[in-house]
């Protein structure tokens, strides 16, 4: 861990200097959204101050510069997740829009009455509701894979509920509530053998594990920039070119067309077919700097640091009386959902905030999972590359003090 330049990293994130209720900010709400390094913030300002323009169709210099910078992000993300081609990278607002794009577009031609879709009990609402909506519209059956008490996908259950009618499996790569890293490669392989479309929700994974979509071999991989040190309002759908080609567009409008006639319209090439209207140019450009930031530190170094911090936190947290962690897979990242006996998470959240510690409380948009564990909510600590053991210590001490009140 010596080589990980945590002190200079912390200086890269201006918000970490903040005082919250007269305390230093301890930001442990990274699964909700991560903080942004100065380079990301500056690249957005720089865009607006120096070369803001609408893109793609302009011949003037600003349009040319903005278009090039915008498309550079596409190339960057293509390499970052190891897609085959830029045509497989579609920009969206975030993971939620990405999943809706997929469900809605596939819904228009791939599914027919009685077909089955499989998700899991640990999915985020954004990977549940779009499938419920399309299932209702098209009379499909939606199945949920059981999650074990430890917080892992029950692979046997998965194999059991696959049927000849299963058309699609959509699964979270890393659970935002449990921290569990799912065996998606194994699951996708089963999908591919059975001719089932696979969608991976990578919202939590993209910043905290190595993503190689060709290696995973999934049909779709979806992520949000704001969870990987990038700005809000940008996400990506990776899709295999063959599927994207045959899919109808999600939205209609400017930019996604080749030719519009009153009598009918022909659609643009990939990926533009799926990018109707003026995109979020400024933030797409900012997103590139977020990936640069991760790459400059090195994904492997980051993961190594985060793993060590996770282990430290796990040990320290368990020293708190009445502390129960929900989600104890041996393969997990630094996300700790927990309850403390006789201490409601809402009170805990507010009391910690008074000490400058930001944790999330509630159902974390995973109500079916909460129901499964008979909880109505938890408090959640989620770590990122700028967090430290000292912050974990301060958190643990603070909670212990609250318990001794």
């Amino acid at each position, binding site marked *: 861990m010596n080589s990980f330049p945590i002190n200079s990293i912390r200086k890269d994130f201006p918000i970490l200097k903040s005082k919250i*209720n007269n305390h230093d900010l301890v930001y442990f709400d990274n699964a909700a959204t991560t903080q942004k390094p100065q380079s990301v913030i500056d690249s957005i300002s720089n865009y607006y101050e120096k070369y803001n323009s609408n893109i793609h169709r302009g011949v003037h210099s600003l349009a040319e510069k903005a278009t090039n910078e915008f498309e550079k992000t596409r190339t960057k993300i293509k390499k970052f997740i190891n897609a085959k081609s830029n045509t497989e990278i579609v920009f969206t607002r975030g993971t939620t829009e990405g999943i809706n794009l997929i469900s809605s577009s596939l819904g228009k031609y791939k599914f027919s009455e009685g077909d089955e879709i499989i998700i899991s009990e640990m999915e985020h609402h954004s990977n549940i509701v779009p499938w419920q909506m399309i299932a209702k519209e098209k009379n499909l059956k939606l199945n949920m894979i059981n999650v074990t008490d430890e917080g892992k996908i029950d692979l046997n259950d998965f194999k059991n509920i696959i049927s000849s009618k299963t058309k699609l499996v959509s699964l979270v790569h890393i659970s935002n509530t449990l921290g569990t890293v799912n065996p998606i490669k194994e699951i996708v392989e089963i999908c591919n053998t059975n001719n089932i479309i696979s969608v991976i929700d990578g919202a939590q994974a993209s910043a905290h594990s190595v993503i190689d979509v060709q290696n995973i071999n999934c049909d779709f991989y979806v992520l949000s920039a704001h969870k990987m040190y990038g700005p809000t309002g940008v996400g990506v759908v990776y899709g295999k070119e063959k599927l994207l080609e045959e899919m109808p567009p999600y939205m209609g409008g400017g930019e996604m067309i080749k030719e519009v006639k009153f009598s009918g319209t022909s659609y643009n090439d990939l990926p533009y077919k799926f990018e109707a209207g003026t995109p979020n140019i400024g933030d797409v450009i900012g997103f590139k700097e977020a990936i640069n930031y991760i790459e400059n530190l090195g994904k492997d170094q980051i993961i190594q640091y985060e793993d060590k911090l996770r282990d430290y936190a796990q040990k320290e947290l368990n020293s708190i009386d009445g502390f129960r962690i929900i989600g104890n897979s041996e393969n997990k990242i630094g996300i700790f959902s927990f309850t403390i006996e006789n201490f*409601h*998470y*809402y*009170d805990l*959240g*507010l*009391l910690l*905030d*008074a*000490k400058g510690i930001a944790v999330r*409380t*509630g159902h974390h948009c995973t109500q079916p999972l909460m129901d499964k564990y008979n909880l109505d*909510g938890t408090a959640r600590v989620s770590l990122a590359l700028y967090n430290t053991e000292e912050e974990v210590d301060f958190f643990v001490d603070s909670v212990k003090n609250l318990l001794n*009140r």
Partner: protein
Amino acid sequence: MKEMSIQKEIIDDFKVLDGDLEMTLNYLMELGEKLDVFNEKDKKEENIVKGCQSKVWLTYKKSEDKLFFSGDSNTAITKGLLSLLIRIFSGKSCKEILDTKLFFIGDIGLNRFIGTQRSNGLESMENKFRIIALSNK
């Protein structure tokens, strides 16, 4: 203006805390703990006030033309807030309740419980008092 004076009392009570959020929350929780024990039987659907992360139950008795409230919450801080509302509204007539405008909350450093945040139930709690008052008019 009796209702004004209760709120002023509350503001005075909190003044010693000097806006320190931690102490304010602690004091709130203490106030909540002092609430009369709530009848478990009254924890039923129709008495629930739903916030996003906490539950509140509120019932009342009418005596002459005055309403007397009792309540509970599953979270200590909300229970503290509730105790303040009960202190303000209990023992008033329906008309008095409806005429009472709440102003104390900002003055005790708890602005966070008002406004656009939907994760707290202060507004829903206040509304519940008013609805009860309306339906008893």
